[in-house]
């Protein structure tokens, strides 16, 4: 390829700035969409899989395993039946069990779920890659009228340490069921995790009972029931056996699920949506590239004369092919770079917003092999799109000779 052809292609592009910029915009939008949807999809998936870690079993009263995980881990879905405290203690004392975290759900504060638990939650709960919860400000819950807020709760409701808040029974945030007489004091705020923990209001188990009525504060308080509990085993191989023991426990009907298995099953429900998203993104991309080829072919009609002149000064048909293909490749490459930059600028710009509002952490928002693949694919397709008018020019060069008009 010679420099003169590159220079001709470049000057020709500069002379047709508007159509070239429009084609570039079409490519940029396709590429931007492709990259940002892929990154967000990856972020959603990673965030989903990292919601909980280190927990071997989620245990609740007999119910569907998906509902149990949805309710206990994501604070979504239908409320659960209760599990007796005796069972929780019995499990905690089992020789294969390392720890349990009791969880009492069912109340809310202005749309955020209230979780009654104890200090074992802070000690043993893990998310992401084995990260534990950290109290960013203040302390963990000590008394029945104290609360520790997830990062999003504190941020979006504007609460600071020392604020007094009212917790209501049930999950509706309407005022009817509010128990005005029992304010809780914010004593701590957790560091952000990007998981449902950020959207949770934490109180003690005694605090949960306090929402529902006056309680006597004494040292040997024990609740009657909890909603569910998380179990950590001393060693992995015992998980399946212990799950079977719990599922066949005859004193109380229980459901014990391995969270990882349920999460995968949940994700497989979302799978088709993911596929549809991919298909649509690909279609937008293809439409963009077809548009590019169309623009090029349309502009070719107006350039017949120019190609004849190049033929007359000695250009070979393959030189015409080279010039037209180069033009497409330059246009496409420009579009890819613009689209890529836009996608990442948008993702980086939106990251704090997505993080705050959807708990979506775009950890995967760094360029990777996917980007290289997109680059190669777009330039490749651009090359093919450029070959269409290029070959047409080539044939014109071969067949039409030095036509005068």
């Amino acid at each position, binding site marked *: 390829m010679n420099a003169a052809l590159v220079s001709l292609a470049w000057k020709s592009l500069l002379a047709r700035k508007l159509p070239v910029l429009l084609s570039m915009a079409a490519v940029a939008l396709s590429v931007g969409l492709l990259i940002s949807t892929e990154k967000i999809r990856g972020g959603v998936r990673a965030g989903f899989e990292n919601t909980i870690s280190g927990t071997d079993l989620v245990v609740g009263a007999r119910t569907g395993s998906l509902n149990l995980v949805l309710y206990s881990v994501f604070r979504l879905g239908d409320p659960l039946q209760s599990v007796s405290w005796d069972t929780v203690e019995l499990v905690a004392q089992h020789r294969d069990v390392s720890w349990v975290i009791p969880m009492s759900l069912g109340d809310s504060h202005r749309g955020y779920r209230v979780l009654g638990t104890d200090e074992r939650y802070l000690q043993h709960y893990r998310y992401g890659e084995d990260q534990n919860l950290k109290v960013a400000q203040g302390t963990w819950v000590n008394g029945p009228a104290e609360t520790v807020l997830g990062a999003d709760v504190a941020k979006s409701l504007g609460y600071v340490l020392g604020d007094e808040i009212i917790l209501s029974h049930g999950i509706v945030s309407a005022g009817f069921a509010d128990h005005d007489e029992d304010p809780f004091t914010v004593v701590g705020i957790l560091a952000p995790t990007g998981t449902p923990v950020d959207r949770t209001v934490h109180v003690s188990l005694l605090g949960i009972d306090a929402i529902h009525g006056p309680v006597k504060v004494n040292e040997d308080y024990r609740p009657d029931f909890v909603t569910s509990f998380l179990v950590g085993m001393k060693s992995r191989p015992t998980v399946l056996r212990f799950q079977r023991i719990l599922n066949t426990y005859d004193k109380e009907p229980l459901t014990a699920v391995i969270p990882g298995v349920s999460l995968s099953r949940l994700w497989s429900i979302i799978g088709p949506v993911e596929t549809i998203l991919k298909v649509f993104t690909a279609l937008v991309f293809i439409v963009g590239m077809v548009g590019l080829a169309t623009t090029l072919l349309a502009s070719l009609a107006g350039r017949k004369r*120019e190609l004849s002149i190049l033929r007359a000064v000695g250009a*070979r048909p393959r030189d015409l092919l080279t010039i037209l293909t180069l033009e497409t490749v330059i246009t496409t490459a420009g579009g890819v770079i613009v689209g890529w930059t836009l996608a990442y600028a948008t993702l980086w710009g939106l990251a704090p917003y997505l993080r705050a509002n959807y708990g979506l952490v775009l950890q995967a928002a760094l360029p990777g092999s996917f980007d290289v693949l997109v680059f190669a694919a777009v330039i490749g397709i651009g090359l093919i799109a450029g070959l269409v008018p290029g070959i047409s020019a080539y044939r014109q060069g071969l067949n039409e000779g*030095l036509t005068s008009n």
Partner: protein
Amino acid sequence: MPTDDPVPPTCQMQDVAFRYDPSSSDRFQLSDLAVQAGEAVLLTGPSGTGKSTLLGLLCGVLAAESGRIHVDGQAMSGQSGSQRDRLRAEKIGYIFQNSNLVPYLSPTENVLLGGQFSKARRDKAGANAQARRDHATALLERFGITDIDRAAATLSVGQQQRVAAARAQFGAPPLLVADEPTAALDHVNRDLFFETVLSTVRAEQTGLLVVSHDLSIAHLFDRQIELTSIAKWGAA
């Protein structure tokens, strides 16, 4: 044809046959055409007699079925497409009837295009980029174009034809071919065009073949050939 000529003709076509459609029996046949160095030849004839076909064959854009086509001593006939393209780039300066300029290039760049596809012509035009640019500027000046960096599209038709002539002469190719080069020009511009082209033809000993149906320019040429006297269309 002159057999005792000491210098071979700048271009020569002999017993050439050509068909656009190989399955058709409609064949273009040309008996003999030669242009000597320093000679200006006018080829006339009504439309449809094969002027474009003759030019396509001479310039190597069309491939002859049989016969001999030589330009500056080199065979155009019997060569591959890209060899013919290279020969055209090197040996022939071509001028269209109109719209001769690449619209996004300046007059200077349009003239430089004359050497774009031939190293020989570039080398003849100048040893380096600056020398070639000077050569282009000098050619444009000779044709009265001094406004050398404005967009080609803003030039008048007369100016455009003269830029095209300057391009055809860039790097001094041995043969100039023009297809109705002054059909779109008024008398003043037409005379200006031929005056300059012919003076170069004489000075550089270039062969000039002009196709036109404008008989009022015939007196400017050394020879006038009626196309129908040397070529015809028909079944073989």
